[in-house]
């Protein structure tokens, strides 16, 4: 790329972010930007330069009907296709990958008396948005149980419960049961609907949501997702 091209890419990106690139040119630029990393980077650079300027605007609280409209529009998408989408899981996967090494270490430490992880283990590190692991779920090929151990202390109101969910590749989350009872350093065993390798076959991730005591009344997560993590197959 010569200097002239770089300059014009920069100039177009600047006009795009400023808003003076209009009409068909704007639409065309947006299409190009999707496949041209250089343009996308130039746009990001201009966004960093210009958009913070808008923080000088005196804030205006929008009327309540705007929020109601948003809720009405997203509600359809949360009940039909399952409230925990895979996008969230994909986002998570990258983040949690780094915790895998830690997971193995912790699994070895927690899953006494097993001296080391047997062949065919499945490990899930469930962490909050701060990326701190909170729970560790593990099982092994052939096992009908999932062992869930608390890595960090969980504070939970008396009228609340923590529910563990399988997040399938497609479709709604499927409850595995409550994990509220697990104390730090302790663990609970949760029955799987089939042998681990089958039950978790198309499950890329698990998540824990905050629910009313006794668990979700609807069969789908109703409260916030507190922890989640990708299913790691160690075979």
């Amino acid at each position, binding site marked *: 790329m010569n200097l002239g091209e770089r300059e014009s890419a920069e100039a177009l990106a600047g006009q795009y972010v400023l808003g003076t690139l209009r009409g068909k040119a704007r639409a065309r630029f947006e299409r190009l930007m999707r496949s041209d990393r250089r343009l996308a980077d130039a746009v990001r650079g201009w966004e960093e330069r210009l958009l913070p300027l*808008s923080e000088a605007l005196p*804030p205006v609280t929008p009327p309540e009907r705007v929020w109601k*409209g*948003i809720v009405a529009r*997203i509600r359809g998408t949360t009940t039909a296709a399952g409230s925990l989408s895979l996008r969230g899981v994909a986002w998570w996967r990258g983040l949690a990958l780094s915790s895998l090494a830690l997971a193995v270490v912790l699994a070895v430490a927690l899953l006494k008396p097993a001296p080391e992880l047997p062949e065919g283990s499945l490990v899930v590190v469930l962490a909050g*948005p701060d990326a701190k692991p909170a729970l560790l779920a593990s099982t092994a090929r052939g096992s009908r149980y999932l062992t869930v151990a608390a890595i960090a202390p969980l504070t939970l109101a008396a009228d609340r419960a923590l529910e563990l969910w399988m997040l399938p590749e497609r479709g709604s989350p499927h409850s595995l049961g409550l994990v509220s009872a697990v104390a730090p350093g302790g663990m609970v065993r949760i029955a799987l609907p089939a042998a681990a390798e089958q039950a978790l076959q198309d499950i890329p991730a698990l998540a824990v949501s905050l629910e009313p005591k006794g668990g979700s009344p609807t069969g789908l997560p109703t409260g916030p997702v507190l922890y989640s993590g990708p299913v790691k197959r160690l075979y």
Partner: protein
Amino acid sequence: MASDPAKQLERNARLLQLLARTALKDQQAFAELYRAASPHLFAVALRILREAAAAEEALQESFVNVWHHAASYVAAKSQPLTWLTSIVRNRCLDQLRRREIDTVTLDDEEEGVTVAAPGPTPQELLLAGADALALKACIEALEPGQRQAIALAFFQGLSHAELARHLREPLGTVKSWVRRGLERLRACLDRAGVTR
């Protein structure tokens, strides 16, 4: 919003966390994200669209978008509020584009462009925003015409043609003000090491 760097950092960390949880379809976090960011974003939309109903629609569409695409936000690449602002601004500029198509026949008869909005003028805003970012010198280094054109385009969403009408200058002149102004701003900011 916050201009104090420490507060800004804290706010960004908070927004980042809320975005992350929104990506996991956490509705409570999403509601909180809306409460935290919508007054700023609504102000952005109101300025550009100049109509409350249109701004409300743009804000609503933007947040529906955020709900579906929060996971595509890449923390390392931009600040959370910058990302949210870009979504709202793009939505507003799209609306303007549709409006332009609708009113293209009326355009010639239009006498001037009303850019009146309550509160500070675009130029005052540009300098105020720059103040918060310690970019004041770069904004001030722009020629007055460049600064005015950039402020009006950025805050009010004016097109080149609208700028020309509003500033009563030939189209070619305002185009070059915008182009040169942006170039100069970038050179100055890059020298100052504010962005890459």
